[in-house]
């Protein structure tokens, strides 16, 4: 039977991959993709617990909010990326080290 644990494992794997993406990617958009993966894994968790843990729809409401906020964040993030591109002519994050101490 597919239980809670299975979903949790899936979410864990996606989270790990998203984290790896965040930590290793040099492309700014790549990092944002990693963030999306992490958010998705969180969503899976929410819904899994909503179904297996409580039975009410609180988890689903929350998942909807997460999706919405992810959208907002992606918008702003990509606007920033475009700004970086216009300033540095590249979106390699190692090129944006001008604010070093």
């Amino acid at each position: 039977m597919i239980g809670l644990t299975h979903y949790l494992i899936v979410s864990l794997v996606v989270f790990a991959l998203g984290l790896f993406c965040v930590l290793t990617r040099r492309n700014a958009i790549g990092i944002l993709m990693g963030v999306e993966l992490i958010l998705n894994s969180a969503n899976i968790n929410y819904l899994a617990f909503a179904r297996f843990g409580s039975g009410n729809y609180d988890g689903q409401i929350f998942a909807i909010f997460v999706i919405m906020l992810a959208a907002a964040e992606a918008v702003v993030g990509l606007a920033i990326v475009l700004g970086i591109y216009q300033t540095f002519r590249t979106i390699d994050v190692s090129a944006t080290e001008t604010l070093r101490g």
Partner: protein
Amino acid sequence: MDEPTSVAYLRWIPLLPLLGAALNGVAGAPLQRRFGKGVVTAIACLPVAAAFLLACRAFNDLLALPAAERLLLDRVWTWIDVGALRVDAAFAIDPLAAVMALVVTGVGGLIHVYSAGYMHDEPSYWRYFALLNLFTAMMLILVLADNLLLLFVGWEGVGLCSYALIGFWYANHDNATAGSKAFIVNRIGDFGFTLGMFLLFWTMSAAGHPTLAFRELGANAHVLADATFLGWGAATVITALMFVGATGKSAQIPLYVWLPDAMAGPTPVSALIHAATMVTAGVYLIARLDFLFVMAPATLAVIAWVGALTALLAATIGTVQTDIKKVLAYSTISQLGYMVLALGVAAPAAAVFHLMTHAFFKACLFLGAGSVIFALHHEQDLRRMGGLRAWMPVTYGTFLVSTLAIAGFPPFSGFFSKDEILWKAFSSEQGGVALWFVGWLAAGLTAFYMFRLVFLAFHGDSRIDAQARRHLAESPASMTVPLVVLAAFAVVAGFVGVPAALGGSNRIEHWLAPAFAATTEHGAHHSAALEYGLMALSVGAGLAGLALAHAMYVTGRVSADLFARFGGGVPYRLATNKYYVDEIYQAVFVAGVLRLSRLGAAFDARVVDAAVNGVAAVVRGVSRANGGFDRIVVDGFVDRVADATLLAGGVLRRLQTGSINLYLYAIVAGVVVVMIAKLL
């Protein structure tokens, strides 16, 4: 003596001139500018005239009293009341003070009038009269004081006014120096005076009579008969100190050196201060303290010899002087010597008698000299005068009369007073032949140099500068009238002191007797024939002097060179250089004091200042250490803290790599830490 009669008008005698001085001093300059010199003259002369009238009134009141009670007292207010000392600001007039007051106000008043003419062209006219009035007020305080301390106030006051008036034309440095010299030499005398006053009060208090008032001192002076001070008799020490004061004021040896220099002042000032009044203050002091002096025969002997020698010394210097005022100055010193001699032979009445006659003829002589100087536009050298009797008859007449008086020719006043002194010098218990002889010599010399002065100035061919001769005229009435008045007194004043030997009653001696109750009459046993003989001798000396002067300066039969070359020229040179006394004083005292003060200054600079600078250096060192501590430790601490912060900042800022990847790692690391914390 019974209680003195109390009156209320005595205070006005000194007070009126004082008010005149204050008014002229404060408002004189603007008044003179707006209304002219007449107002200033009125403000100055009227108070003196009023004082004279009040003095006459006091004289009258004294005459009305019986002889033993002749004392008027005016107690104004209690001045000092401290412990045992009680001094009143009070004025007392007894026969002696009455004579003095009349002389001061009378002669002073005439000189005020004379000054109005003499100082006519002076811009500081108001200042002159303010000072002259102030002087008169101070002299009257001196004369009318009923206690020694108030007398001293007047004493100092006249010294101050003398200084101010000698240096009246202060723009000329020499005049200012002369004024300073007078004041400083007087100060030396004043030192003696104050020491004497302190000692007197001290010994009187120890004997149970703490007082400085004259009548109480006089009544109780006998308590000092046994008192001693440092092994000497108290009376002797006190009187010696008082005499030191008198030598300063009355220009005796050794403190006479200021008087010739004082001729730098205006001639009326010389007449008033340095002939008639201030210089007589010393004589007055000794006369006043007669009750002390009779207890100190040793001091009296010293006084007598000082007086006699001063008379002779000054006379010798006077014979070679070429400045008309200097001759008169040395003459004054010489005549003061006579007065002091009289005091020294316990004949104070004779001294005061001579004081009075001297005031008249000496003032007349000085004013006459002033008249000559005025007419010749301030020419004072005898070698540039001559034949003035043709142009200035009134001046000549009064001058001649006064000269006859001073030379001691009868029946002029000087004859009676000087002869009284010489007689007392011979016959008194304190006197002796030697003293008489010195006095007699000085009398001959007096006649000589005074007539020398007359012949050189008024007789013979005129050596006057042609320019001055054109404006030569007799002086105005304001100057000649006082001359005539004074000459008249020089003639008749002697008649109050005609001795018994010549059939007179010697009224002045009897008048002054209450003041000199302590002095007893000695020498009454000498015969009248001796007195006649001595009188003849002194007149003979006068005639000899007159004849010699005539031979030398009128007929030219005796050459002056004879005397100049006498004794190898040494006496002449000594006399011309005033026996080098000024130079000796300068070398010994002045230089010595200067050296001492330079020593003191060096000490102050090296030791005292070094100590102060040393302290300052120590303080500077301490503050430098403090500053160092502040800089190194305190600031250092703060700086090290700042350095540590910067260091930490420098280290920590390496976290800011700007690398986004690193930041992400950091986020993850934080999350991991939280997770681990939650798990544990």
